[in-house]
């Protein structure tokens, strides 16, 4: 991926040697980040017996797609050990997508409203309100799980995606509000005032003027909400019980604690669970970094 400049070997020179050193360090970082993930990825293409060899087989000798096929046709001829868990994979993925997207959208709507008010309006109780938002984030999830379970049970929402979405929204909102508030504050007020001059209503101003400018902030807030919902295991495992609402992490953790499941199949499940967030992270990389750094941390 990186080639040493040729004059490193010939003319020497401090500068190019330094560049070479930096490039080597860069390779070391890339290997550190990539190696564990590559191992997972490679294993997903191995036959089970190849994955269990000693000494370790690094590159699959007989690469196969059979595990990927198993997930998409779980009950066919490919039904392997762990086939039942494999059947839950696709519904799990759909549930995860709905839960994560629902959480992201709800976050944007609620977060924009509250974030705007904290960024632009001066009102009594503002500081206290921000305190309540941030304070509610300080309580670890494990502390809420029992009362939350009982509350959602009373509301008849157990094993529904709606229970997951509302829970995730509650946990992600404080960060979204904080990030959007800070992001809105970086946008000049004159923009809004000009929109009002042109006769826009508040809502028109918000949709046509402010939100397009705040796009990096909105994208990174939505991404964080999406990731939190997609990654959560603790709440999902307590609040869901059937394929009606089981999310991917619950299905995958089901593999992990079931000794009969083939490891290669587990690896495939892991890879499938990674693809959507990975795609989003790389797709929106620039916007995420931009929104996060100007929104979450201020000069």
């Amino acid at each position, binding site marked *: *991926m990186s080639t040493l*400049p040729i004059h490193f070997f010939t003319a020497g020179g401090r500068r190019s040697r330094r560049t070479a050193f*930096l490039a080597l*360090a860069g390779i070391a970082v*890339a290997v550190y*980040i990539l190696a*564990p*993930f590559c*191992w*997972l990825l490679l294993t997903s293409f191995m036959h089970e017996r190849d*994955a*269990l*060899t*000693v000494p*370790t087989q690094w590159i699959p000798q007989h690469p196969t797609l059979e595990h990927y096929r198993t997930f998409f046709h779980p009950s066919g001829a490919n039904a392997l050990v762990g086939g039942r868990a494999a059947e839950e994979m696709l519904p799990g993925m759909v549930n995860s997508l709905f839960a994560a997207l629902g959480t992201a959208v709800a976050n944007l*709507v609620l*977060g924009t409203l*509250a974030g705007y*008010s904290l960024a632009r*309006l*001066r*009102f009594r109780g503002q500081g206290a309100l921000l305190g*309540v*938002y941030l304070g*509610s984030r*300080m*309580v*670890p*999830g*494990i*502390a*809420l799980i*029992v*009362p939350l379970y009982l*509350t959602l049970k009373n509301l008849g929402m157990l094993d529904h995606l709606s229970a997951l979405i*509302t*829970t995730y929204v*509650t946990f992600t*909102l404080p960060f979204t509000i904080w990030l959007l508030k800070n992001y809105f504050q970086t946008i000049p007020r004159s923009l809004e005032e000009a929109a009002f001059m042109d006769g826009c209503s*508040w809502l028109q101003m918000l949709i046509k003027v402010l939100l397009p400018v705040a796009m990096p902030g909105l994208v990174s807030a939505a991404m964080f909400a999406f990731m939190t919902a997609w*990654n959560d*295991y603790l709440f999902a495992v307590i609040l869901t019980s059937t394929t009606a609402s089981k999310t991917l*992490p619950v299905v*995958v953790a089901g*593999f*992990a604690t079931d000794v009969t499941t083939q490891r290669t199949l587990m690896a495939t499940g*892991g890879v499938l*669970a*990674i693809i959507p*967030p990975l795609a*989003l*992270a*790389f797709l929106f990389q620039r916007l995420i*970094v931009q929104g*996060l*750094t100007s929104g*979450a*941390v*201020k*000069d």
Partner: protein
Amino acid sequence: MRPSLSLPAAKPRQRVNRVGYDRRAFAWLLNAPALLAICVLSAFPIAYSAWISLHRYNLQRPHAFKFVGISNYIDILQSPEFWTSLWITVEYTVLVVMLVVVLGILIALLLNREFPGRAMVRTLVLLPWAIPPVVNGLMWQWIYDAKVGALNGLLVSLGLLDQYRGWLSTPTSALLALVFAEVWSLLPLAVILLLSALQRIPAELYEAARMDGASKSQLFRYITLPWLSQSLLVVLILQTMSALRAFDVIYVLTAGGPGTATTTLTWQTYLTTFSNLDFGHGNAYAWLVSLITLALALAYFKVLYGRGDIEA
């Protein structure tokens, strides 16, 4: 940097918003949906949890719901499990946060320099962030595996290890294994935040200092570190919270074992609540964890506010 707590100067009079709403009512209206969600699903459960923690309430004997005051808390504070798990939590958190901060600074410093392939490494660094903790745990469980794991395979083939060993079956190596798995997944956020802080340091500062004959370590000590301090504190807060809450990765990787070697406070709370079905003590544990987290958060915030580095 702006002074602390300074909000943009308020307009002289309480103006009525252009749309015609009274400003204060409008502000609360905008906050109503968020507040409602947080009250129902955060504030209420927190209070409910406190109420349960004052009762004897064990699902194995569901009818014995009895008010016992703070005796659950006293039981916990007198139990050796609490102090063991507290100590393990401290070890785990300190190790994770230290490694994340040191590695985060080093990688951010590297990515702030020009070298071939930099853009690619910058993108790659995001990778662990996109991996769900459960999958992360699964992945490392496998790498550490005693019989066929990649770590054993690698170390033996490099001649660094005589024979395969069970990394997750001795107390010290299990804790370290857990720490490394967590550090790997927490690094991206630290790198992003620190790198963007580095990019905001004006280059003239370094030039001026070099003119004055400052050494490299002096440049780092007197320019880089102070400019990094705010982001560093944000990273410290975020990573401490994450480490204190770690659950998924422990669940998949070690389940608190071997013995109690990786039983952190969070895991102990989980065990008390869901293995022993002792909701009274479980919620008391949960409250103790919350109080510790809150105290740490307040301490960090005090440092941040005290330095005038962050705005309300």
